[in-house]
């Protein structure tokens, strides 16, 4: 079946360097640096990545960071809490705009 998303394509991520290698190299260097143990642990970064993956709804990233968080020793409760953080921020981002709606509604109302 033809589909835009194929799980097998995730493994080809490195191949983006086949076109415009210098840019890909810079990106992957940066990527590697970002996920290193730093002021945040590698485990904390992985949970952030999992949450962001859900916020941007990237199936590749969800696949990759579900595995990665498990390989960093996280369990389902922690993973789901991370997704709820993403959902709360997304939901909150919609709802906080209600203040604009309210402002406008008040402006137009007697």
């Amino acid at each position, binding site marked *: 079946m033809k589909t835009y998303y194929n799980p097998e394509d995730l493994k080809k991520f490195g191949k983006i360097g086949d076109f415009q290698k210098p840019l890909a190299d810079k990106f992957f260097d940066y990527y590697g640096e970002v996920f290193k143990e730093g002021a945040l642990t*590698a485990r904390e970064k992985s949970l952030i990545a999992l949450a962001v993956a859900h916020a941007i709804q990237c199936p590749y990233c969800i696949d990759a960071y579900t595995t990665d968080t498990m390989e960093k020793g996280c369990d389902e409760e922690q993973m789901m809490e991370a997704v709820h953080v993403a959902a709360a921020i997304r939901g909150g981002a919609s709802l906080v705009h209600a203040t604009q709606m309210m402002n406008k509604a008040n402006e137009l109302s007697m």
Partner: protein
Amino acid sequence: MKSLKAQQSKLSNSTYELEVLEANTPTGFEETAFSQKLRGINLYPLKPTQIEILQINMGKMCNQVCKHCHVDAGPDRKEIMTQDVMQHCLDVIRQHDVKTVDLTGGAPEMNPNFRWFVTEIRKISQSVNIIVRCNLTIIVANPKYNDLPEFFKEHQIEVVSSLPYFTANKTDSQRGDGVFDKSIRALEMLNAVGYGVEGSGLTLNLVYNPSGAFMPAAQDALELEFKKRLKNGYNLVFNSLYTITNLPISRFLDYLINSGNYEAYMEKLISAFNPVAAANVMCRNTISVGWDGYLFDCDFNQMLDLKVAAEGSQHIADWNQAALTNREIIVKQHCYGCTAGAGSSCGGATS
């Protein structure tokens, strides 16, 4: 749950297991025989460095039936070591410079001659390091085992115990319902006599292995997390955490195949091949003894029935140190489990 053997599963036959491992190389990885990989880094044929550890499998009988068990152990397995074979082990420990005796199973404590054997090993030497791989729940399985912590202490045993996670659901999904709570009770009993407690001199190490088809976390980071969670949640202490990779044999292989994870898991192990871990595989300083006295390069080769390639020295009764030290270690595709990422051994990560 029953053992694969009791279910008469094809995978309880080691010849068939090896065929599956050889025949099912993931696509794109056809040229990756483990021996070739070792040749590429000048490690083939793989030779021992020296024999320091005697790992003795006292039998396949166990009170648990963990889903990942590479021994295919369980209450329905009756194969256990006789006192006669133990006597041969004692002779080897006495005559050769064995630094560590590592007792495993199954649940080694279920062997009726377990306490006698431990006592005899301790009589030979005060300094030999004796490890018991205790599954924890055995301590609370029956009143006759409740004093095991005291017995371990009296004989200065190092206790190494599996606890795949610091929560019940992940632990129980791998090791069986109720195992987490029982393990916590057993850990309390071990702590109570001093195991894992700073300054006691009594070592309690825990083993983490992933509850599924993924790689273990970095050992140091996970140890910190385990220490924090066990201390805060249950007021428990321990010494070190060993992270272990599940090898694709026996019940874990059965799980991989049935869950459709086999190919991706092998790919992961092969891609994560680490030459440093390869140089440090545990078979280079260990001999593994089966319940019936036969000798193997490691507990995994034992389960695959790959006896040591040491002519005239394949049984503990015929121990020939020179032949064993000069042997070639038998390596197959399952060995990728020992060399992936940070490496894996009975003592945790190897690089």
